[in-house]
């Protein structure tokens, strides 16, 4: 146990550097996934054939390809087309796009759970589509979407570990390097796991707080 604590003292600073990167990549990917996911969901909800079809095809294609392969594609293939991204950028964009599709499905479920009568009532007092969404549908969908949103957010956080394969120096990557050079597998991966928990548990708590605060009663 003493040795564990001693090693931990040596390794933690390196892993914490990774943790900062993990937090950064998770945050950027979450912003991309939320905004883009909302756009995709609204495209499908719009009922306009070409928008709905485009969104559905995009979601199905992206959901059908493993995140790892998507990351490889963005980091290693896009440079051939003149798009050079840093590992961090590729990771954040790749995870953001992959998760936008999961988010889109969450949002769509929330939008479709809103009673059609609400849309008609909004229209019957002359609201435009945008106003109907902003004032009537989205605020109600928000409540339904909170639990799956929180869940997806935590999955996203954990999936940032996949960015280690394209050399993003996040927690898992740093852990792998440490373990490879010290052979202290147990110490290193216990710390890595602990750090992920240190991220997710507050998120669980935040998600359940938001549900209690804004969710359906």
């Amino acid at each position: 146990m003493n040795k564990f604590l001693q090693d931990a003292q040596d390794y933690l600073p390196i892993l914490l550097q990774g943790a900062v990167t993990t937090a950064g990549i998770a945050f950027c990917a979450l912003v991309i996934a939320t905004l883009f996911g909302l756009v995709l969901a609204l495209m499908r909800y719009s009922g306009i054939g070409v928008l709905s079809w485009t969104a559905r095809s995009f979601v199905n294609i992206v959901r059908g390809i493993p995140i790892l392969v998507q990351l490889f594609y963005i980091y290693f293939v896009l440079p051939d087309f003149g798009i050079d991204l840093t590992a961090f950028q590729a990771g954040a964009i790749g995870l953001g796009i992959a998760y936008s599709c999961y988010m889109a499905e969450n949002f769509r479920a929330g939008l479709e759970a809103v009673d059609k009568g609400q849309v008609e009532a909004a229209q019957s007092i002359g609201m435009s589509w945008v106003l109907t969404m902003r004032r009537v549908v989205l605020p109600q969908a928000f409540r339904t979407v909170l639990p799956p949103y929180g869940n997806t957010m935590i999955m996203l956080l954990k999936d940032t570990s996949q960015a280690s394969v394209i050399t993003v120096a996040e927690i898992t990557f740093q852990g792998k390097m440490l373990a490879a050079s010290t052979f202290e597998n147990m110490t290193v991966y216990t710390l890595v796991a602990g750090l992920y928990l240190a991220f997710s548990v507050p998120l669980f708590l935040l998600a359940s707080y938001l549900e209690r605060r804004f969710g359906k009663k």
Partner: protein
Amino acid sequence: MITIKGLHKSFGNLEVLKGIDATVEKGEVVCLIGASGSGKSTLLRCVNGLETYEQGAIDVHGRRVRAEDASIRDIRTRVTMVFQRFNLFPHRTALQNITEGPIFVKGEPRAEAEAHGMALLARMNLADKADAYPEQLSGGQQQRVAIARALAMRPEAILFDEPTSALDPELVGEVLAAMRALAEEGMTMLVVTHEMGFAREVADRVLFMSGGRIVEQGPAAELLSNPQHERTRDFLSRILSPM
């Protein structure tokens, strides 16, 4: 004020409106009666542009009502609607439900919209419910808030789609009373209803629909007490003595 000419409407292969001609004059109260599936709600929804139609024309003040035209939004602020299931916005209070349209659609200053909203709530005997959410209100109260919401746009006419059908029997009266008061103030109303007592006492004219057509129409008292068409007689006898 509302003119409907040769209106045809189908859902897929099912033709639900088979050539409707009707008018509603300013200040008139017209009740649409008929069995379920006769097309009366569909007709009302066409007038508000909630449904498209294939043939014929609906004009409000000479402006063509078409669900797909941008002008429909302006027409809807002049002809508002009250729904069977109230359709109040559950995330907003009674007062916010009423001021939503005036503030966000018509751009009225908030203070003015709220003052008007409070006056409308008072008219509906709901002044003390301004801050209540729909789920805290009874069905009858919700429907009266919905009527106030429709009135808040200062419309020229209001469409009512079976406004009392989703209510417990003991709550029907308060909603009908509010509608009668509106009629007495000269509001133009087109009402789909199964309340024959209301039609008889409040309506200027009654239209009887069956199978997607207007089979018979006339002054309320006349049509209800002395129906000419067999289908009208049949319908009225079933509705007045269901046993």
